[in-house]
Every structure is written in structure tokens, then in C-alpha cells.
């Protein structure tokens, strides 16, 4: 039985190889040979398709359909940084254990996280940028002439501006309900109407309003300069609800002496 359009006919293989070198075919042969492909042809196709990655070790994804393969690069942070260094091509056998001590400009550092965003674990683009700077530190190169760790400190203190990304951060692991119930403010749009703060059931008529939650603070962070501030509807919605309930209760029981009704200021 061979039903049509069977997705199991297509195999995906991940390989790590050096582009453009002759010895690459002997690395490919044990993995590709059993699948029916010619390693020499696969090596030539990789060298042709990945011309600008010549001499670098990259991870390649091969989608194999019955002896024909399509080639894609799986980008990794270290390969993108080494590519950005634009080192001259070297003979791997003669020069071993070289130091990557070049210089990368900050603009290139901004380009790389945008390509790697879908694989990043960070919530915002600044987090991804810091991840790439960490990889740059492992590689051993400099960014704009100074050590990558210095740039990370500058970003944290807000001295350096980073562009914000347009898309929302990738949903990672935690389902929406758990995100909502955690106590950290989340910037994603919220559809649930449960309040973050539980409404106290015990009201003291003559008491002060100290038990009511304070309005959420206006957050000013390094990413707020020059960018659209995301409205923290979650916290404000809950705060407004709690105050509204309090006002209803006050209306029902009459205003106590000495307590003025708070003004609702909405940001």
C-alpha cells in the first residue's frame, strides 16, 4: 500500500562539514552513502550553494527525496560570528589552533540576532543580543575594539541603544494560563479577566485604604527610549477592578469619616 503524498518518504539529515574542502566528502560518506546519495555530488552541491561560507565548519540540513537532496544551512551563533570576522581563507592542516582575534562592528552584531531570533530563549531582542555577545566572548574576538563583556554592561546600564524587534517574543514552553498566574508582569495581550491580586473578603469600614494594592509602577527600562512602550494591561486591569469593587462597597456602606475616595488615574 503506497498512499500518495506520504511525508515519511522524505528524510532529513543534519551534518557538520567544512564547506569547499576535499576531505569533506570522506566525512559525508559514512552518513550519506547508505541513503543512496553520492557524497562527492553532495559535497559539490554544498560548496556551490554555500559559496560565502567557504572554509567554515557549518551544520547543514539535507532534505533527501530518493537520491536528490536539498541543502539548507542551520545558522549557529558561532558560525555567524566567525563569518562576520571575514578572516582570510586558511589551510586547516597547516595552521592549527588559530586565535579568532579580529574585530566585529556593532551593526553586524545587531544583524546576527535577527537571524537567530527564532532559536533564542530570550524574551526580548536585547536578551538575544547579549547571548550573541556571550558567544563572541567565547570565540575570542572584539566588538568595536573593546571586549564583548563591556558592551553587555553598557546595554544593561542603558548607555547603548538597541533596536526593538517587531514580532512578539516566541512562546516558550509555558502555556498561557501559567504565564498569567505568575507574578511577573507579562507584556503579551491577555484575554482572561481574572485579577492578578485576590480581592480581600474582609473589609474594615473605618480602616484606611492601605490594604488596597498600589497602582503598578511605570516601568522605565533601557528599551523604552525611542520605542513604543508596551501597555501593561494585565496589571492595570486587575488594579482597576479591585478599586472599582472597593468603590462599590463604599457606595453601599457610605463613605467612612476621614477617608477620601481615591482618584482613579489611568495611565
Amino acid at each position, binding site marked *: 500500500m503506497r498512499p*500518495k503524498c506520504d511525508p515519511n518518504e522524505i528524510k532529513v539529515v543534519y551534518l557538520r562539514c567544512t564547506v569547499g574542502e576535499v576531505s569533506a566528502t570522506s566525512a559525508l560518506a559514512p552518513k550519506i552513502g*547508505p541513503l543512496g546519495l553520492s557524497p562527492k555530488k553532495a559535497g559539490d552541491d554544498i560548496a556551490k550553494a554555500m559559496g560565502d561560507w567557504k572554509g567554515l565548519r557549518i551544520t547543514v540540513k539535507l532534505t533527501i*527525496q*530518493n537520491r536528490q537532496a536539498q541543502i539548507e544551512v542551520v545558522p549557529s551563533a558561532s558560525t555567524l560570528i566567525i563569518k562576520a570576522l571575514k578572516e582570510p581563507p586558511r589551510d586547516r592542516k597547516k595552521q592549527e589552533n588559530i586565535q579568532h582575534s579580529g574585530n566585529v562592528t556593532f551593526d553586524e552584531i545587531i544583524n546576527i540576532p535577527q537571524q537567530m531570533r527564532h532559536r533564542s530563549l530570550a524574551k526580548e531582542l536585547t536578551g538575544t543580543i547579549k547571548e550573541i555577545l556571550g558567544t563572541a566572548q567565547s570565540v575570542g574576538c572584539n566588538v568595536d575594539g573593546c571586549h564583548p563583556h563591556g558592551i553587555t554592561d553598557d546595554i544593561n546600564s542603558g548607555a547603548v541603544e538597541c533596536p526593538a524587534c517587531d514580532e512578539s517574543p516566541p512562546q516558550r514552553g509555558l502555556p498561557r494560563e501559567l504565564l498569567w498566574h505568575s507574578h511577573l508582569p507579562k507584556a503579551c495581550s491577555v484575554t482572561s479577566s481574572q485579577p492578578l491580586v485576590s480581592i480581600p473578603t474582609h473589609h474594615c469600614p473605618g480602616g484606611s485604604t492601605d490594604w488596597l494594592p498600589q497602582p503598578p509602577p511605570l516601568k522605565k527600562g533601557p528599551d523604552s527610549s525611542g520605542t513604543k512602550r508596551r501597555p501593561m494591561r494585565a496589571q492595570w486591569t486587575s488594579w482597576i477592578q479591585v478599586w472599582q469593587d472597593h468603590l462599590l462597597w463604599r457606595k453601599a456602606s457610605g463613605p467612612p469619616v476621614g477617608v477620601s475616595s481615591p482618584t482613579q488615574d489611568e495611565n
Partner: protein
Amino acid sequence: MQKGKGRTSRIRRRKLCRSSEPRGVNESHKSEFIELRKWLKARKFQDSNLAPACFPGTGRGLMSQTSLQEGEMIISLPESCLLTTDTVIQSYLGAYITKWKPPPSPLLALCTFLVSEKHAGDRSLWKPYLEILPKAYTCPVCLEPEVVNLLPKSLKAKAEEQRAHVQEFFASSRDFFSSLQPLFVEAVDSIFSYSALLWAWCTVNTRAVYLRPRQQECLSAEPDTCALAPYLDLLNHSPHVQVKAAFNEETHSYEIRTTSRWRKHEEVFICYGPHDNQRLFLEYGFVSVRNPHACVYVSREILVKYLPSRDKQMDKKISILKDHGYIENLTFGWDGPSWRLLTALKLLCLEAEKFTCWKKVLLGEVISDTNEKTSLDIAQKICYYFIEETNVMLQKVSHMKDEKEALINQLTLVESLWMEELKILRASAETLHSLQTAFT
């Protein structure tokens, strides 16, 4: 006023050029297609992109009514139109299937449903779809034995296997068919005959699409991946296109998206899979011309035949090849002999003193020039032998075409298969020749 620059002359010139291309003839006015469209509309499927048509090369197919861009949806068939094992179990056959022990296979369930619905005729709910299905198929299991004799050896073996499998399938299901007697007025032996079951089996084999397997309790543990899709199965195969076809769980419909462009009034193709011609013929009963996946298989006996028999280590070499999986799937393709075939030949030609380097040979390294040359010579001899054999078979086929007029359709199919193999072998021979001149 210059001649030939106006609108009329442009239209006339265009007509001259286009008329050389054969166009499809729209067949959506035929009664069976109108019935099918009404039946699909009742099940909430309406489509304005495609229309059934008859094309000169590929026969019946679907023609696009608009121009389709990359990534656009060709067709989206709702779940209510698909014929799956769920449909069978929810029908009148469900009770009998659930009762029968050992549990019948999903394939048996689908075939039984098809045969009984075909027998029901006008009373069947699926009548419009069954009218569209072909009355006869061209799979090797349906061909005459003398035609099957003319097929390539590897394909002939698989065709015999297929025939045995269908006969065994029929024999083992006869008891189940007898249990269905209460449903029918006539004797079940006359309804569920071998030819009826063969028709149903070929329908499922050639027209089913892949659906994610779901396990039904009343059916056996065989993977249940087949679903019949009316209207969608009119699409023909082309190896040069890529499509994304899958069942969408959110919209509960089977969707096909194209990754190529289609002009208006062009036939729309999908890709059944990256199959070579022998597999296409075995499973679907047709042959694709200029198929990039097509190849000619080299069996072990042929390999050994052309090697020097006085080599004492031949058995050892063959067992090494078997262990590493280099004895199957050795082919000649459009770009010459495959890498695996050349590597296997290099290992088999290894001289006795160099035998310890067999691992390097399997990794593709060059041992010596004489080794390379010998392996290329043997590959060329095998290629020429195959070309001679193909020519002999083509002569036999044309001979039989003159003798037996009734089998002409089947013989034309076999002839096209052999012609494609001949073209591949000739291309391989040229590549081998250029490889050899590089060594001398």
C-alpha cells in the same frame, strides 16, 4: 502602414504558436461530473479553481481555471467528503466488522465497503464518486501473464509478489465475506468475487492519499494510513513539481498547497512521491516520461557475472558489501552509474594485496588508478549488456503488439517503460565514456 503590427496580426500569430501546444478539453459539462459536484456541494465543498478536463498526454485530469501562485491552496477537501475507515465503521458494515474476530485489517474494511457500495448501485450514498472511478486499472496485478513476462526482471519479481499478495488477501477474507450474507439478497460469492475485490484493491492502492494513522479498536494493528478523496484523486502526477499535502486538524480538511505556478487552463499536477518509474508502474499503473528519479537497477547476479571468477576473496568481499548495505539499490541513473555502484565495483575489483584497504574504498577514497579504471570498465560492460537486453525486449514487445491487438494498451505501457530505461542507459554510457577518457 506596416504589415503585421496591428492587433489582428498579433492575435493570429499567437493562435499559430499556441495551437502547436495541445490543450486540454474541459469536461465539466459531463453528467457524471455534474453529479459529483452536486454531491460535493451537499457535503459543503465548492471549488472554483479547478475543472475536470481531458488532456492529450495524461488523459483525465484537473485544469486550473485561474492562475495559481506559489503557496496558494489548490484544493481543500472537508473531512465529510473523505472515505476513511471511520466512514466504514459508521456505516451498516460497522456492526459486522466489530463482531468479526480476528479483527479485519483497515484495507479489508475499505475494500469491502467499496464492493458493497458498488453493488448497491443507485441506492448507494457514494454513487456519484463510484461512477467517476475507472472500470479497469493498469497495475501489473491486472495485466495478462504474457505482458508481465515482458517486464524488467526486478519489476517482474515484484509483480509476481503483488499478485500472490492479492490472491492470499482474497483467500483469507472469504470467511469474512460469508458473514456478511444477511446484508445481501444475492449470494456473497457472486458479489465479492476475485475480480470485484481486485478492482477495490487497485482503487485503494492507486487513489488513496496519506492520512495520519489513527488506531481503531475494532480493526487490526496494521497502520491505517489510506483515505479516498473524491475529486482530489483526479489530479495527476508529475515528478517536477513539489506540493505540500496534509490533513489540517484545525479546519478538518485535507489541503494541498502548490509550490509552483500554474497558468490559466493548464493541467495542475501534484507529486505522489519521489518514485522511480518501476515503482510508479507497480503501485499506480503508469510511467512518467523524463522522470529525474528514474533509474535502472543492477542485481547481484549481474555484478558477479562480470567479475573475474578466479578471485578467491570474492565471497569475503560480497559479505562485506552485504554487511555495510552496499549490495542493494545499485543503479544507473540519468547522470551515470550511482556512487554506490561504483564503490561496490571498486571493492570487488580490489587486488588481493590491497585487500586490507577495503574500509578506505567504502569511504570513497582513491586506492589506485588501475582500480578505478577496472571498475569503470566493468560498469561500462554492464551498461552495454543492459542496452542490448533492452533492445531485444523492445523488439519482442513490438512483435507482440502486431500479434495481439487486444492487449495493445498494456503493451504500449510496457514499451514506454523500456524506452525510458533505454534513454537512461544511453545517458549513463556517455557519462561513463567521459569518465574513462579522464583516466586514459
